[in-house]
């Protein structure tokens, strides 16, 4: 069984009117569910990947707030009938790809019928900030994943690699500074080059293991860090720039919204032909490189 993207919802907070991570999430998830071929009752799993959320709360899961907000099997009084498990996957900008694999595992194992992955990272100003700017654009994103019975299309394979020796290149934390809590982002000025070094190893290891080449792919979906970064990545991989999907926006990295934003663009511009393949390449703090193959 292939696990496919059934629908996508995106909300770009262009005029900064949305102030909370939960609302950002709702603006993306509601149209995503509406466009899908599934009802809310069918959603067995809600996964939030937002690292930076309202009040930076650590308990309960942010996804339980999302599940309640969207009224997805939220008011159960017993364990009978349709029900939903909510959980967070936190792993910097790798969360969304991790969550896609998690949904694939849960659907393949028969634990759920569909899974909703949401991200809405937002530095909401309830703490002061220090260090480098957050560097990502607050964007609501949602993706509904479901099993494809014919099995031809969808996510084919995933691979993740961690380069812990490069870990110090990217860090964020909160701490008590004088009389208030402060959020700090620390990035090596050469962090993009560090990402590219990790990609040059991680991607080629993956291709070798899977016995496939970059020519086997119709497009490459990179992390939407910046347009310049995507150009450099094309150089590192040795592929034409046109092969790279670039939906970067002015003013910041799309962070966890990278994959849904790129997929949304692909489906909207000219729907891909059945059988076309995309190589997804994601980078994140850690330093981690994630690869996945998606067949349309």
């Amino acid at each position, binding site marked *: 069984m292939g696990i496919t993207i059934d629908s996508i919802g995106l909300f770009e907070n262009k005029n900064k009117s949305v102030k909370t991570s939960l609302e950002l999430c709702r603006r993306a998830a509601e149209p995503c569910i509406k466009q899908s071929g599934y009802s809310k009752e069918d959603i067995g799993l809600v996964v939030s990947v937002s690292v930076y959320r309202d009040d930076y709360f650590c308990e309960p899961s942010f996804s*339980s707030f999302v599940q309640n907000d969207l009224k997805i099997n939220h008011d159960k009084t017993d364990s009978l009938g349709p029900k939903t498990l909510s959980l967070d996957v936190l792993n910097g900008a790798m969360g969304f790809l991790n969550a896609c694999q998690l949904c694939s595992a849960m659907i393949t194992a028969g634990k759920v019928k569909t899974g909703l992955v949401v991200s809405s990272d937002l530095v909401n100003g309830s703490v002061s900030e220090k260090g480098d700017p957050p560097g990502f654009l607050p964007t609501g994103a949602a993706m509904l994943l479901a099993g494809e019975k014919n099995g031809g299309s969808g996510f084919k394979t*995933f691979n993740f690699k961690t380069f*812990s020796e490069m*870990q110090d290149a990217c860090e*964020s934390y909160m701490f008590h500074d004088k009389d*208030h*809590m402060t959020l700090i982002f620390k990035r090596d000025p050469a962090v993009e080059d560090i990402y590219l070094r990790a990609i040059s190893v991680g991607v080629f290891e993956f291709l070798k293991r899977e016995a496939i080449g970059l020519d086997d792919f119709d497009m490459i979906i990179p992390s939407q860090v910046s347009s310049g970064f995507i150009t450099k990545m094309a150089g590192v991989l040795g592929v034409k720039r046109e092969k790279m999907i670039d939906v970067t926006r002015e003013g910041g990295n799309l962070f966890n919204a990278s994959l849904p934003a790129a997929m949304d663009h692909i489906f909207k511009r000219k729907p891909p032909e059945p059988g076309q393949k995309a190589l997804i390449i994601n980078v994140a*703090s850690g330093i981690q490189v994630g690869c996945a193959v998606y067949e349309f």
Partner: protein
Amino acid sequence: MGLNTVIESLGVYTPEGRLSTKELVEGCKVKPVFDLEELTGIKTRPVVADNEYALDLAREAATRCFEISKYQPKDIDLVICTNISRYNGPNWKASFEPSTAASLARDFDFSNAIIFDEPNACAGMFTALYIVDAYLKAGFIKRGMVISGEALTCLALTAQKEMSAPFDPQMACLTVGDAGAAFILEQTDNPDIGFHDMDAFTVAQHCDYCIGTYSKEPHGGFVMYTDSIKIHQVAIGMTAEHVGRMVKGTKWENSENHHYIMHQTGTRAIKTTRKSINDWVGTEVCSEKNSIVNVIERGNGASTAHFVALWDHIRNGAIKSKENILFAVQSSGINLGVALYTLDDLPARVMNWSRMEQREAIKEAV
């Protein structure tokens, strides 16, 4: 149905420091109106040293888990860290990036594993178990590891300063304890052992009954606000039905066939839940004898609670190889879970490890 998932190894680390409920209450600006020790049964709990944090607890637990396991870090395909606590340094440092799992990849060779954090309140380790079971059944991995380091007594220190009413929403902060736990899961072709059944879901309309975040007060730190009455009401009532439905008409409805481990919030909550389950099923599923009560000396270890209880009761001889365990899971969210498990020879291997560790300690002392 496929193969059963089995706990291949287990490791638990509890810091040496101890903090009694009496000491905690004594330090509160406004003291609870009732006897907290009498209400919860918690006499004392492990507490981290000044330079010990969530990541350290996780690392120690994972190290012990590998000492008992036949596997090495490079053999693990999936690592999920589930600690609620991200308290990782002086001045109330709370880490966001890299994730705990990525940070641990510095200490253990997880370079080729899928790694991520999946905090899900006190149900975190159980939810991760449910996830690893799915990865195994889907054929995505051969073995997965779940790790948690809960440095939570910092919540109690903030509550001592901030509690302003005799029945305060921060009172539950006085019940927590610090611990690390880790386990490795794989599949077995022996249908008599491992997880026979498991289920988990979230009743999200009650998601705001317990919230953990940072303090907005000038002293900083972390806070947790809990509506203890409401959360217990929902969790106990729904656990009775959830557990009841899974065990009714099976061998698990007889308390003599298994141990019962539920989330460890307090002795009274354990007793009430036990009675609710028995009333729902109509037989004695849980008795005083088969119920594992670990909260008295450990406090509420959040996501580690079930596995610290399992570890402690293997080490004190109460839980033995080949025996059955009925797990019941409750957490804020509200998350509910049930699992039916038969142990392999893990207790014997944990006991061997304990004896070796004792010998090492004696050697060092001499």
